[in-house]
């Protein structure tokens, strides 16, 4: 009886936490489908009004939302690919090799994370201006990658640390090269961590605002985070449109997370079974 009560209590607690986490998203959905009159009514509407679904259609027609989302996707995928490419070998070197300045390099990566974007935006703007990287998605991918690589490197280093060196030594005896070891042995073993850092790098590129706002002037290259902010006006803000666009903006990122999340869970589970 006591066990059953505890079980139900745990279920309730989990549902409560889930509810708290999901409520803001639900509230955005309700707001996006509520008429302006009802939005400011004394008793707020708790369920979306299906008759207001047109807000989404209007947002799609009256704004270049799809272009913004497309640009964000290019930047997020570019940042993810480049970050992984640049972080894997340094992470392996930091984990497995001894060389002069290793500690300094590792700390140096940490230090770059202590500088806020707002502080770096002016010198970066100047550098990008000289290299004709302003008003280009490539420039934004490079800027975001610079911020993602240190984090990704450190996380991957931690994962590689956890792999027994004996496995690599056995491979080396069998004639496998260093790069071969990294590609064929290390990476498969840290697949869940790779999935996790993929999510981190993707969201770095997807959510970034300061660089995107400052480096891009061309309307056709605008990203969704900046486009969304442009609805918040000096004199008025169309709340239903903002929440409709905001919700649409979160969907691709959620889908990407769900796709990658399978590998994180699969990796964790397989590790547990093997013991």
């Amino acid at each position, binding site marked *: 009886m006591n066990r059953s009560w505890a079980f139900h209590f745990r279920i309730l607690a989990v549902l409560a936490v889930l509810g708290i986490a999901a409520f803001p998203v639900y509230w955005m959905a309700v707001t996006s489908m509520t008429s302006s009159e009802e939005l400011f009514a004394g008793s707020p509407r708790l369920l979306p009004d299906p008759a207001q679904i047109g807000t989404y259609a209007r947002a799609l027609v009256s704004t270049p939302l799809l272009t913004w989302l497309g640009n964000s996707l290019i930047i997020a995928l570019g940042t993810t690919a480049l970050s992984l490419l640049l972080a894997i070998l340094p992470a392996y070197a930091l984990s497995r090799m001894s060389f002069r300045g290793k500690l300094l390099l590792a700390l140096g990566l940490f230090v770059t994370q202590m500088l806020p974007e707002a502080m770096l935006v002016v010198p970066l703007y100047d550098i990008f201006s000289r290299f004709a990287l302003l008003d280009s998605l490539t420039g934004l991918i490079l800027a975001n990658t610079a911020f993602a690589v240190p984090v990704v490197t450190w996380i991957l280093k931690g994962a590689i640390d956890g792999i027994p060196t004996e496995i690599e030594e056995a491979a080396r005896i069998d004639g496998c090269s260093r790069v071969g070891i990294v590609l064929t042995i290390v990476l498969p073993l840290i697949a869940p961590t790779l999935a996790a850092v993929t999510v981190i790098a993707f969201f770095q590129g997807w959510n970034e605002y300061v660089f995107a706002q400052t480096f891009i002037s061309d309307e056709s290259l605008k990203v969704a985070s900046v486009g969304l902010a442009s609805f918040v006006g*000096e004199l008025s803000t169309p709340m239903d449109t903002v929440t409709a666009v905001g919700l649409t903006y979160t969907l691709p990122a959620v889908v990407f997370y769900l796709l990658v999340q399978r590998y994180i869970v699969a990796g964790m589970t397989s590790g547990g079974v093997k013991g």
Partner: protein
Amino acid sequence: MIKKLSGYRMVPVIGTAAIALSLTQVSAQEKTVITFSASHFAEVGRGDALREWVAKFNGSQDEIEVQPITIPFSSYASTIFTQMGGGAGPDLVRFDLPEFYAAANAGRLLPMDDVIDDAQYDFTSADAYMKVDDTRFGVVFDSANYALIYNADLLPGGEPPKDIDEFLEYAKAATGNDNYGFAYRATMAERGGVWYDVTNFVYGFGGRWSLPDGTPTFNSPEVVAGIEAYKQVYDAEVIPRGTDAATYRRMFWEGRVAMEIDNGGVATILTAQGAGKPIHASASPFPHPEQGMILAPVTINANTKAPDAAGTFLKWALEPEQQQELQQLLGAANVATVVERSDEELAANPWLAAYDAQTPNSVPALAQGLEEKSPEIQQIVVEQVLRVLQGGVSPQDAMDRVQEHVETRMLRR
């Protein structure tokens, strides 16, 4: 209908296409393209009208094209300053007055004395603020007065309050049943907006932030009286505390806020959202008629590669026909030159009269003589005012602190 072309047949097609493409490129390259940033471009209604106004210029030109740039209002000034500091940025920039002075004093703007001949234009009185040390760095793009706008249904007899006591009485009476008597900003997230709201109270009680020679007067009795009134309204619990301006303006339009003191641009946007909810306006209910004013110059970025093209656009914008059109699309705002309103316009928007009547009493919301220090002054004043509202600090103590801070740290006296 569609046939596959064999290899040799493709040659002339590709050749023709390449020639056509190269001709198009040559034609596009011949045009000097300049960019123009203004937070207006992102506004619902006015933004589209303003883009059309710019498109009209583009249609009249063979060699110049102006491209509007949209930058979110919340990060407008910081983005522009970052771009200017990095040696680039839009060619033409619409600034608010505080940022205008900061940019001019930092050498980020191109002097316009060779571009604009004062004798050719009938400028409004606000043009006096476009010069720094007798050098012109901008022309007024728009200026807007402040007035009290009200929902007649929520006020006794449908009439606006005539003095501050009546104002508080009406605001309290209108508050309840999810309605609010008044609305203003009171959060650091809207620092610029709080500055304008506080300035209206300070000016309305006869205060000024400084003397014309730049001597700060932040703790003068009149300024303190304005801050006390600001606090009195806050304590009366008649405002939707924490609500941002965009939201409470919408609440006003929905008939949930009885009164607010706002600039003509807001009244124009609210009117544009539907004629079914007419706007009413009157003078602010303060002892003195002076109120703040939105004054926004358009400037030429010192980094521009095409100063002549930027100058051509400004000269076009100052033509009487374009000024008339610009004033009409901006609504309750004035432009660089004197433009009389048409009878039709006044008949369609009776509230315009209250805003226009405020023109002689409108004063820029700046510390005179300390214009280039405006961003820092805004920060200090708003910080202290919020301590008065939310931290229990007395208005006198708070403004003494501002005075001391400005004198010792900013002016090093």
